[in-house]
């Protein structure tokens, strides 16, 4: 009965070389990664991504897409890293021997990749630099390490600006260019495998369709290329074209079926949510993750109880007649009064559907009873308060809801300067909103003016740039990179491969359980081991 679960956010940033619109975005993105301090320190740049356990074509519905029929953009496990031998998949938790490569590795600059001391991954995905946050256990930590990602990107912007031989870049935490391109902000949630995927998807879709009312980042322009002047709630809505599917780069679905749990697949699935917007407002990020986690808890618990107990029946009555067009309807309705047709013939607004989910979660929580942790109480209270305020006075939510914070500025500018929605200054406000540079980003001007609510302190964010969360395996990943970086040859979400000088083979440490490798588990052990060799001996004993 909690918002707590293993979660994380991946963000592809928009990238520009100011004044050079034709600059190659892949090259610029690889500069963003390569200039990062961790990469420049030398040894750590050699830590490649370990693709051994990646399987982006595995579909949660139970079948496997043939590589030959997959869109090339889906092959995210492109083996620029040589696959370790098959015996590396042994299930033991101790280090596993891997043969060394006999020739020097080929370093593809497009495969630029850095594993950060905070447990995150900074790399080039398609034509964008991407920050994949470390695994965290709660929505407030998700905010902290998501904000840390903004500072990681800012550090690269600054480093490039101060290096005459390299191009300047500007980075944007948004999802659209207004010309037809979109790039993603994906949420990941660890979900119990016992929940059948079809049930999970069916029960989540009405929630994901309607949550835009408080999670949307706002967007100037309507239609994939912004062909119609105006404003809408969500950056991503117009690019959602399917209910359920494996693709992430075309025919984007409300519920994505990529099933790479990066954990014990018998016990867990990783729900990969691609419909969401990148948000600068901390409350928006917090509630996006927090409410989704609560709804997932409701669904998991109902399955564990054999479908009994309060709440689930309410959710099962919320099936939408046409979820894809409902995504667009909700996003395009600034009044929050549009009615969506349900499968049972009812017509409810997005706010009413969200209130049903909230009531269902509350019913289930009351059914279970017991103590609730502070974040669960906080998320529920904020969710309820926002749904109420959005129903009576949406403008009053501009401190917490990003599309309303953005719309407030845009409407003010329209009123003051008598601008129509197709005026380029309004589009410029939308884009410059998420520039990561505090002196340029308009969101940061709002922070400076005290016009938005914050949840984490600058000190907490700074700390999250350097250090991993203490309570997931990201702790082990980040700490070994910080302590033994020069002796790590590759790493991934669920493994670290050590290359200890003088050892006969590489040694791969599997991390199949996201909740092991925490500070409580390995903190003392790491403190006792001055180098990777002693750590591996300790782990193997």
């Amino acid at each position, binding site marked *: 009965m909690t918002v707590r679960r293993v979660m994380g956010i991946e963000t592809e940033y928009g990238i520009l070389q100011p004044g050079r619109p034709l600059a190659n*975005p892949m090259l610029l993105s690889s500069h963003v990664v390569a200039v990062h301090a961790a990469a420049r320190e030398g040894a750590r740049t050699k830590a490649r991504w370990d693709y051994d356990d990646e399987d982006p074509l595995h579909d949660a519905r139970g079948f496997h897409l043939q590589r030959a029929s997959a869109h090339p953009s889906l092959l995210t496990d492109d083996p620029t890293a040589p696959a370790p031998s098959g015996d590396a998949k042994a299930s033991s938790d101790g280090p596993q021997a891997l043969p060394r490569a006999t020739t020097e590795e080929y370093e593809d600059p497009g495969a630029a990749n850095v594993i950060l001391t905070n447990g995150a991954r900074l790399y080039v995905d398609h034509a*964008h630099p991407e920050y994949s946050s470390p695994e965290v256990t709660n929505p407030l930590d998700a905010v902290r390490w998501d904000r840390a990602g903004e500072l990681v990107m800012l550090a690269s912007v600054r480093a490039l600006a101060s290096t005459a031989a390299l191009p300047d870049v500007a980075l944007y935490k948004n999802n659209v260019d207004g010309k037809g391109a979109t790039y993603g902000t994906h949420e990941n949630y660890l979900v119990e495998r016992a929940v059948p995927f079809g049930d999970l998807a069916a029960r989540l879709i009405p929630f994901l369709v309607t949550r835009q009312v408080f999670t949307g980042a706002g967007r100037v322009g309507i239609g994939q290329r912004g062909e119609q002047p105006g404003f809408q709630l969500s950056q991503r809505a117009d690019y959602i074209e399917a209910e359920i599917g494996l693709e992430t780069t075309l025919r984007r679905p409300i519920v994505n079926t990529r099933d790479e749990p990066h954990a014990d697949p018998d016990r867990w699935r990783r729900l990969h949510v691609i419909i969401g917007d990148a948000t600068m407002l901390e409350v928006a990020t917090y509630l996006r993750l927090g409410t989704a986690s609560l709804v997932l808890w409701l669904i998991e618990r109902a399955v564990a109880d054999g479908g009994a107990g309060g709440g689930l029946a309410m959710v099962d009555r919320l099936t939408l007649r046409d979820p894809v067009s409902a995504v667009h309807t909700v996003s395009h309705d600034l009044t929050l009064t549009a009615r969506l047709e349900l499968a049972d013939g009812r017509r409810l607004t997005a706010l009413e559907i969200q209130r049903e989910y909230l009531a269902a979660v509350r019913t289930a929580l009351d059914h279970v009873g017991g103590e609730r942790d502070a974040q669960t109480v906080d998320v529920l209270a904020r969710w309820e308060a926002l749904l109420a305020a959005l129903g009576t006075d949406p403008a009053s939510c501009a401190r917490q809801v990003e599309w309303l914070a953005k719309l407030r*500025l845009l409407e003010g500018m329209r009123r003051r300067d008598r601008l129509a929605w197709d005026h*380029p200054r309004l589009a410029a406000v939308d*884009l410059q909103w998420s520039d990561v540079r505090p002196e340029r980003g308009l969101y940061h001007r709002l922070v400076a*003016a005290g016009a938005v609510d914050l949840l984490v*302190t600058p000190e907490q964010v700074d700390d999250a740039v350097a250090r991993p969360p203490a309570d997931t395996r990201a702790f082990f990943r980040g700490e070994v990179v910080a302590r033994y970086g020069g002796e790590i040859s590759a790493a991934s979400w669920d493994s670290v491969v050590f290359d200890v000088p003088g050892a006969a083979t590489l040694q791969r440490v599997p991390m199949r359980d996201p909740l092991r490798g925490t500070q409580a588990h390995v903190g003392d052990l790491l403190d006792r081991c001055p180098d990777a060799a002693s750590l591996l001996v300790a782990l193997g004993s």
Partner: protein
Amino acid sequence: MAGQEQVRPRRDDEEPVDGPDTPTPATPSAQARDAEVDALLDEIDDVLESNAEQFVRGFVQKGGQ
């Protein structure tokens, strides 16, 4: 920014600041809201791209996920 609510950063271990027991301050009037937005716009005018049209036209991205 007279009249602005102060930002109240919150630490992990503190009670939520916006829980049901501590309602947010009363909604300001429409006039006060306009004044607040105008003050924000003054700040933004100073940093917004001077050639908005060129900036928007040049903001071209390749697709992603």
